[in-house]
């Protein structure tokens, strides 16, 4: 196995000012069920954009609208400057797509499936790099001689990833692309995304693997129940989000510090107390950015033996929105994948 080559020609992206994906006020209904509700999504050219949301949030539905597989009930959608409801074929020439549930022709071998995907793309006027494909087959350690029906889910996923990265496209739309891959192949996938980004290609990555998104993405959009919850540059979102501050205090000072912190953060804030093995008390609280200095002052006056201030991780950002109200939980939309 080798690493995917970094010597592929750098794609010369035409000077285009518009975003790779620009969605505004998107509404998609399936009968009476509203799968997407006034969704806005902007993916800037050349970025790697994470697309997150709990199961049934509407990610796959949104992706299918972007590919022109679904129509829309309201809103505007532009992918590479075009409307997928009108120009889906023209758009998809320049889009590589890996579906969450990979379906391939069971009677063909992996080699033949790749030939078909390359042939169809070329016949549609797109471009496909055979040399790059060979490198990717090697990098993903894919046995292309086997019939598809004998492939595991991970191997079917690899076929689609090879075809996606070997196609000379501007935009990659990847829906849970690593769900069947082993950790080694996940790393190879990460390298491929990095190379695509270095070539100026745009990546829209839908994933539940937060570490992967945190590592690969410049920006994220979080949706829930078909609505936008949060979007922006990852670094900025972290900066704006609450930090977690913890301190280890003696039993004598912990009570007073707890009272002071609750007074400072408000009665709704939770200050967690935990007794350590040596009988001391660990206090922990989620603190808004503007209150960090005052919280630290309170804790320092209590003479702590240990103080930690941790910025919000993507997991923190995300899990806030993952909490699902069982009573208000929605059923999946028709044809949705797990993340539809």
């Amino acid at each position, binding site marked *: 196995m080798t690493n995917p080559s970094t010597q592929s020609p750098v794609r010369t992206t035409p000077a285009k000012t518009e975003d790779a994906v620009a969605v505004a006020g998107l509404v998609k209904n399936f009968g009476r069920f509203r799968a997407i509700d006034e969704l806005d999504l902007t993916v800037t050219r050349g970025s790697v954009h994470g697309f997150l949301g709990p199961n049934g949030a509407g990610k796959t539905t949104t992706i299918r609208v972007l*590919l022109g597989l679904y129509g829309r009930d309201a809103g505007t959608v532009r992918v590479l400057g075009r409307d997928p409801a009108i120009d*889906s074929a023209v758009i*998809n020439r320049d889009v590589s797509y890996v579906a969450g549930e990979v379906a391939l*022709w069971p009677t063909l071998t992996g080699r*033949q499936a790749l030939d078909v995907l390359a*042939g169809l793309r070329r016949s*549609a006027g797109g471009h496909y790099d055979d040399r790059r494909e060979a490198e990717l087959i090697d990098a993903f350690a894919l046995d292309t001689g086997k019939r598809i029906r004998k492939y595991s889910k991970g191997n079917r996923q690899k076929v*689609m990833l090879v075809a996606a990265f070997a196609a000379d496209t501007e935009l990659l739309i990847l829906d849970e692309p690593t769900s069947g891959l082993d950790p080694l192949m996940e790393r190879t996938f990460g390298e491929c995304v990095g190379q695509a980004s270095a070539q100026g290609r745009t990546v829209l990555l839908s994933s539940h693997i937060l570490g992967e998104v945190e590592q690969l993405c410049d920006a994220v959009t979080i949706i829930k129940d078909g609505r936008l919850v949060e979007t922006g540059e990852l670094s900025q979102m972290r900066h704006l989000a609450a930090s977690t501050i913890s301190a280890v205090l003696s039993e004598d000072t912990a009570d007073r510090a707890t009272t002071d912190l609750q007074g400072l953060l408000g009665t709704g804030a939770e200050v967690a107390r935990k007794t350590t093995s040596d009988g001391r008390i660990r206090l922990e609280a989620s603190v808004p950015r503007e209150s960090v200095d005052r919280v630290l002052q309170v804790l320092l006056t209590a003479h702590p033996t240990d103080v930690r201030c941790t910025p919000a991780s993507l997991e923190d950002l995300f899990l806030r929105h993952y909490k699902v109200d069982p009573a208000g939980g929605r059923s999946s939309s*028709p044809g949705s994948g797990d993340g539809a």
Partner: protein
Amino acid sequence: MRHDSSPRTLSVASGTGPARVALRTHRRRILAWTVPLLGLLAVVAPSYVSTYPRLSQRQHLISSLGDNAATRLLYGPLPQPGTIGQLVAWEMGTYLIVASSIMALLLGVSFVRGAEDSGIAELLQACGHTGADRLRGGLVATAVLAGGFGVAVAALGLAETPFVDELTWQGAVGLGAVTGVSSLCFGLVGILAGEIADSAGLAKLLGFLVLAVAFALRAVANVHGVVALRWLSPLGWKEAEAPYTHDRWWGLLIFLAVCGVVAVGGRLIGEDREYATAPLHERATSDERLRVRSTLALTWHLERRRWLSWTAIGAALAALFGGMSGSLVQLLQQDASTADLMSKLTGEHRLDAAFFSFAGVLLALLVGCYAVLTVLGAGVDEADGLLEGVLACGVARRRPLAARAAVAVVGSLAMLVVAGAIGAGVTATQLDGTAAARDFAYVVGQWPAVLALTGAGVLLVGLRRTFAVAAWLPVAGSAVLVLMGSVLHAPHWLQVGAVFAHVPDYVDGSRPGTGVFVLLLCFLVCLPVGVGCHSRRDLLPS
């Protein structure tokens, strides 16, 4: 120490859970096979009564068909004296045995190997069922399927016995039993093949090889009178048991013993087999490349095996009809009742034209089924998510369905031409060149009907994937109207609604009537509308 409450002991009826899952999973396929067969069986005896109420009126039919090599090959010798029950068992009994054997074979494979290919077997094992339960479930499901179908056949015969003098309860039970036991045997062959082969496709191939050998043994037995061979072939068991003639019920014990041997063979091979393993492997690796440059080329590559197998069946049927043409035309000339029936069915007054028209309808029915299946493949691709992958390569939305329509249109024409040419070639040896030309014209002349069915299929798939199944309604409706319309006294306006009822005698100089243009118009309207709708609507994977 033995634990009587262990899960293994608790699962005394451990096969019933997997069996219920198997039967429920395939319930639509089971109904699609059994309901039309039972429906056809229900109308056959009354039809014979209506056409040949007295034994004397059947003498020409019985002597002609009994002497003909082609009919002996297909149906076996016609038992004497030719009661209604004997005619039903001879003609319809053959269809029942062959069709139910194919059904049971396909389902037997699906119950075991198909369940492993699809992952259902894995799910069952994950729910606490053992590998042996999975096999036992397949055996129970096959027994229920075959037994249930046999009981239904017997029940229909018994229900008609009070109304048709020449039917007997012994014959009805015998026909039901022999149908059930034949399908049970092929269901078990399917299970055995599924245990031996590592894919459902290979298992079906093995099963059909057994079926072909059984058919060949029966054909040799029937044509050359080697009676002993009938006992060796499950397809010949009907002639051995002879319902409505000898009613040799004791023979059923022998047939059941053969089924028992096949079942034991399946258990011996399958009981200790690991999940998803098999002694016989299909060639799983290949370095072959596949250079396709269009969706049309891809569709043809994926569909070419279907075309070849359906064309082979069509060609064999055409050759059979050609072989029967000489004696059947002679029969029509001598037998006023049969000639009248054929004229009513086909609307033709020339006797040879009536026969070739009838043969053309049967072949067109086969080719129509091929065309509809091919077009409905677009819905299957959509459900499976394959269409999504094709469109994501930049292929225009209209192309995949248009490609399937093109394969159906050209494939059906090629199939009709091949079948027509082979039928005409054999007819030329039986009659003359004009008759051969007439045979060819009546077969190829059905192309507008197939086009109309193709158009209807495209329209329905285009409107919505879940509507696609309705494409079988015009096929089934037309088949019933054109084959049974006169016998069932359907009104004329309804009978002309059958797509297969519009082929003129081109050899006689007749020109295509309004019906042909209506069929072509239907195709020309439905095709673009269906493709247009398909390219605009949401594509919904299952």
